[in-house]
């Protein structure tokens, strides 16, 4: 049958086209004699958090484009940086496959992953292969507590953030009875646990701890349970795809309480999704506000012009790439084994913070800003001072 052969021919053509999209794997230098340095990046580019993952990719890409435009020289050779961006679907299992793929592609360093749940399992693979990993946004305490030398992050961890939020809820907002919901991911659970510790230490009582997952849309059942316990504040440990609808459903169930979440909810999308129920909600973000940082305003203007509004972590990705390149320049090598010590001791002025790492790879110091939705916009309330890194 001629039809069948035409069809199989079509399949072969499509397969070839798809294979053609794969990156060529030549290493070393390109035609003009420039040194090629590959930088890996990974975030969820599909699934419920895809918009945040794409934002991460954009932040990383902008830093790499900037570096290429500047014509950076490392060890006497002009360098061309190449971005290899992979989708980890916010899934821990996929993250390990992606990590192995990046290792096989001989990247000099990795910017990622976005979630704590993906960064932690991937970090073992990077560590085993001696590849530097800087996560822009993984905040779980465990991420840097595994004893890996290759693991860094440019954001305050959950112990720092949870402590500030718990204290803020119990002291500044005078919440006595607090309900907590988390999404059972490494991030949500970790942040909620630290929040609970801090809130209890400041005299608040936890009246309910309920759970959901990072794909859910309906929270009426758990919110009804929460309602029965009559708390005056609800804390959610999780990301914006759940935080937004949750705030909305809170209002629909006529729960009059304060709603608070961490950095995962601090996005313009939250206000979009929650509608007028967003008004008055609290969230936090490690670092001070962008416009208070030298270079922060210029960065956000350029980013917005190129990719549209910043979702959340793009500035942190931008800093992560730049701090990595700075360490490479300092040692004159893009070999992770060589530039790693320089990275560990670096002091770099980024757009989100002055970046210095402690012995575990956590960000030193690290202020945390609490925001509230006022008149349909996130407004900074207070930046809570420099807090010593977590003790464990």
């Amino acid at each position, binding site marked *: 049958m001629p039809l069948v052969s035409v069809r199989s021919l079509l399949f072969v053509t499509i397969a070839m086209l798809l294979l053609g999209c794969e990156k060529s794997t030549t290493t070393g230098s390109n035609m003009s004699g420039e040194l090629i340095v590959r930088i890996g990046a990974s975030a969820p580019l599909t699934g419920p958090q*895809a918009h945040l993952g794409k934002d991460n990719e954009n932040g990383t890409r902008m830093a790499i484009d900037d570096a290429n435009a500047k014509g950076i020289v490392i060890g006497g050779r002009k360098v061309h940086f190449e971005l290899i961006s992979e989708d980890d679907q916010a899934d821990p299992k996929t993250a390990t496959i992606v990590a192995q793929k990046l290792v096989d592609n001989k990247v000099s360093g990795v910017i990622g992953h976005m979630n704590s749940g993906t960064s932690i399992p991937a970090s073992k693979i990077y560590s085993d292969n001696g590849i530097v990993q800087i996560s822009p946004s993984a905040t779980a305490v465990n991420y840097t507590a595994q004893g890996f030398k290759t693991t860094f992050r440019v954001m305050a961890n959950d112990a720092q953030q949870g402590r500030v939020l718990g204290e803020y809820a119990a002291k500044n907002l005078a919440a006595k009875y607090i309900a907590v919901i988390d999404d059972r991911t490494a991030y949500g659970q970790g942040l909620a646990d630290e929040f609970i510790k801090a809130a209890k230490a400041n005299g608040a009582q936890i009246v309910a701890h309920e*759970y959901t997952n990072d794909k859910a*849309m309906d929270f009426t*059942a758990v919110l009804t349970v929460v309602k029965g316990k009559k708390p005056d504040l609800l804390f959610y440990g999780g990301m914006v795809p759940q935080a937004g609808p949750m705030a909305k459903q809170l209002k629909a169930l006529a729960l009059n309480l304060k709603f608070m979440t961490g950095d995962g909810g601090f996005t313009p999308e939250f206000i979009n*999704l929650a509608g007028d129920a967003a008004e008055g909600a609290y969230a936090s973000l490690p670092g001070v506000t962008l416009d208070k940082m030298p270079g922060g305003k210029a960065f956000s203007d350029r980013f917005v012009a190129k990719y549209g509004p910043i979702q959340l972590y793009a500035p942190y990705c931008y800093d992560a790439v730049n701090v990595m390149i700075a360490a490479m320049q300092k040692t004159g090598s893009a070999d992770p084994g060589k530039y790693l010590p320089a990275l560990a001791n670096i002091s770099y002025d980024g757009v989100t913070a002055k970046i210095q790492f402690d012995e575990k790879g956590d960000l030193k110091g690290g202020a945390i800003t609490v925001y509230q939705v006022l008149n349909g916009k996130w407004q900074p309330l207070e930046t809570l001072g420099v807090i010593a890194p977590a003790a464990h």
Partner: protein
Amino acid sequence: MEIFLQQIINGLVQGSVYALVALGYTMVYGILGLINFAHGEVVMIGAMLALSALTSLLGMGAPPALALLLSIGLAMLGCMVLGYSIERIAYRPLRHAPRLAPLITAIGVSIVLQNLAMMIWGREYHSFPQMIANHSHTFGGAIINDIQIIVFVLALAIMAGLMVVVHRTRLGRAMRAVAENQHAAQLMGVDINRVISITFMLGSALAAVAGMMISASYGLAHYYMGFLLGLKAFTAAVLGGIGNLRGAMLGGLLLGLIESLGAGYIGDFTGGFFGSNYQDVFAFFVLIIVLVFRPSGLLGERLAERA
């Protein structure tokens, strides 16, 4: 007591949406013995189409009521075309292939649709415009709002309408005949290709309505929303007895109730040993129990009858 009542309301509203989507699975299974895993994505496409139509119509200054009706109509039409094309392209060529082949294409179609939607509508969340003032009513201490009432009533009305179509019309008779025995139906002069196409279109139109209802009640639409919903609705269809229309409705409502009561009371029943994190486990546990004692679901026909 008011908490209990509130959980019942939560469960019924959520369950009616599951039921509506489950009908799409069960209709196709009843007739073809095929699990159309792309159905959840059709729901998503329906929601997206309705949202796009609605925002552009409102942008052109159409009155809200007209815009709402038109966008439901457009979404249903779009999904009917989609449902027809899916069947024509991905399932019909494999109708006589081993059962596993169409199942795999179904999963493939679902991935294609999801990525297509991601390319068209982007990765971001779209908020659904609030069309009507959403009053809430207190009912014995529990709260129910207008959109929830509309969702529930509309879902019941559509299910009733579908029952009438299947049991009282010529088309319905043809559908039941094809479900019973394709060859015999063909020999009796039933155009089975036509009946199957119409079944897909009908199921997809229901999916469009379900998608729109979900978007309106949660206030959002996203290219990934069909995945979990499809899974839950499929579970509901199996719970009620896949292939059976009444079973899908019962299964949907039951699943909604099990989920909300499970989340609400599992902690109290187990003395805090299990919490609401076992909400989904609880739902699937009930499913397993039902299948152990009634392998074909609550209202499912016994397999011997089909053979």
